[in-house]
């Protein structure tokens, strides 16, 4: 027996060719998983392509039809208007929530709580049926002449009801987004701006908002995409947006599935465009924050 114990095991001899590439063996799960996914896709593809009920020629026929395009236009309009009003309302509510006046912040918080706690579909139906609660609207000077009077049903068209419901709903969600953005800006930034002699408004415009935007833009992009899809809900009030437009068509020709495919394809086209815009905006507003 040797008196000396070797401290390290003997070195393995070098492989003959050190340039050989390492290849990891494929796990059996790789094969099983791929097989399941592949078979599922094949089956779906078979139905989609070969089923007589999904008539692709009908999809092609209606994809660019006037009614569908008008519906698409209305959907984009609804989304844009409701989003613009929602962002404005959200900013107002966010500033109100951060107000030092308790009544003001309480009112804003209650609004957000109420709207986020009730379904959008209910809001749409409520505004559509507003006449059942308030039959007529009037603006009058107390004990004086009536300046304006109108029947609620004439005043609140289905389209206006849709815009009101979507905007008021969106404002509550945007309030949270904007509030988060404003709170994300380090308090030292406001102090530095103040110390340099900036007024409250200058501080907000030049220091706080540009930094808050970076935080606000990604969730706002998601809100726009959600809004585009949520606008389909207003089809329940016979507002001729994209979904309702195809519903009208398939109620006549019973080509339900191909027309739903038409609507879905258009929603996908628009959301995809929105993703591109969102990506561009995010890059633009991350100035000073890029690593490297």
């Amino acid at each position: 027996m040797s008196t000396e114990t070797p401290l390290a095991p003997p070195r393995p001899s070098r492989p003959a060719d050190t340039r050989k590439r390492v290849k990891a063996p494929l796990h059996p799960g790789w094969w099983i998983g791929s097989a399941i996914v592949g078979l599922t896709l094949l089956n779906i593809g078979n139905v989609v392509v070969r089923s007589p009920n999904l008539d692709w020629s009908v999809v092609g026929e209606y994809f660019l039809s006037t009614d569908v395009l008008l519906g698409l236009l209305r959907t984009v309009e609804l989304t844009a208007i409701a989003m613009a009003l929602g962002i404005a309302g959200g900013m107002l509510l966010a500033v109100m929530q951060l107000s030092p006046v308790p009544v003001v912040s309480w009112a804003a918080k209650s609004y957000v709580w109420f709207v986020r706690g009730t379904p959008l579909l209910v809001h749409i139906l409520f505004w559509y049926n507003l006449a059942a609660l308030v039959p007529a609207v009037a603006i009058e000077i107390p004990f004086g002449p009536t300046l304006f009077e109108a029947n609620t049903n004439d005043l609140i068209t289905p389209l206006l009801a849709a815009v009101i419901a979507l905007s008021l709903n969106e404002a509550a969600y945007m309030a949270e987004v904007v509030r988060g953005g404003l709170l994300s800006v380090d308090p030292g930034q406001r102090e530095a701006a103040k110390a340099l002699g900036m007024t409250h408004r200058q501080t907000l415009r030049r220091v706080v908002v540009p930094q808050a935007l970076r935080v606000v833009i990604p969730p706002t992009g998601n809100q726009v995409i959600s809004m585009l899809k949520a606008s389909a809900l207003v089809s329940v009030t016979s507002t001729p947006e994209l979904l309702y437009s195809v519903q009208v068509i398939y109620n006549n020709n019973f080509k339900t599935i191909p027309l739903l495919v038409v609507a879905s394809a258009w929603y996908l086209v628009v959301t995809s465009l929105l993703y591109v815009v969102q990506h561009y905006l995010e890059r633009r507003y991350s100035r000073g924050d890029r690593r490297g």
Partner: protein
Amino acid sequence: MAETVLSLRDIHKSFGGQEVLRGIDLDVTEGEVVCLLGPSGSGKSTLLRTINHLEPPDGGAVFLRDELIGYREANGKLVELTDRVLARQRAKFGMVFQGFNLFPHLSALENVVEAPVLVKREDPEQARARARELLASVGLADRADAYPRHLSGGQQQRVAIARALAMSPAVLLFDEPTSALDPELVGEVLEVMRRLAARGMTMLVVTHEIGFAKDVADRVVFLDGGVVVEQGTAAEVLANPRRRRTREFLTHVR
């Protein structure tokens, strides 16, 4: 005798029932460098922040030359000034913060240019030229286009000093300007401050850098418990403190 630039009279400030400043008087003359020393919680940072009304004092008055800062007198009472007037007054002070507080979405040059153009309505081209000079004077001529996150702490603080100088302030306020810096970066910031002092800048410096106070300060003010415990030249206060409280503090920081 040099003219008095800044006067604090009987400054009081409380936070939630706790009195942080309990009647502070201080006069600073033109070109003087005053270092405020004291243990944490002694109120020295709060005092600095009452000067440009970032913290409104509860009692007492701050005067820049003859101008009352933050308030106006109406029927024997003090009323806080409007946002616009306050902003105009604050522009006369420069402030350098412990955490630098550079604007992260602007380059070093843009940080320096921002306030002169926005607040003083200076011509953007002239402001940029001046900003480049100021950045060069703090040794950052080649970093003008860098964003704050690509600058070291010492570099960021030097940009912050240039940003404060761009407003041509009557008084520069430093709130622990080197406390957030890695030890090897402290020297470059103190060096810039030394040169400012030598050029006759009126400076009020809250600091823990006893060495800087000893070399640069015309006067050292020792605060504890919201009052001025002792003040005098650096040699008097730092070498021969008369008060026990000052002696204790100095043995701990050295």
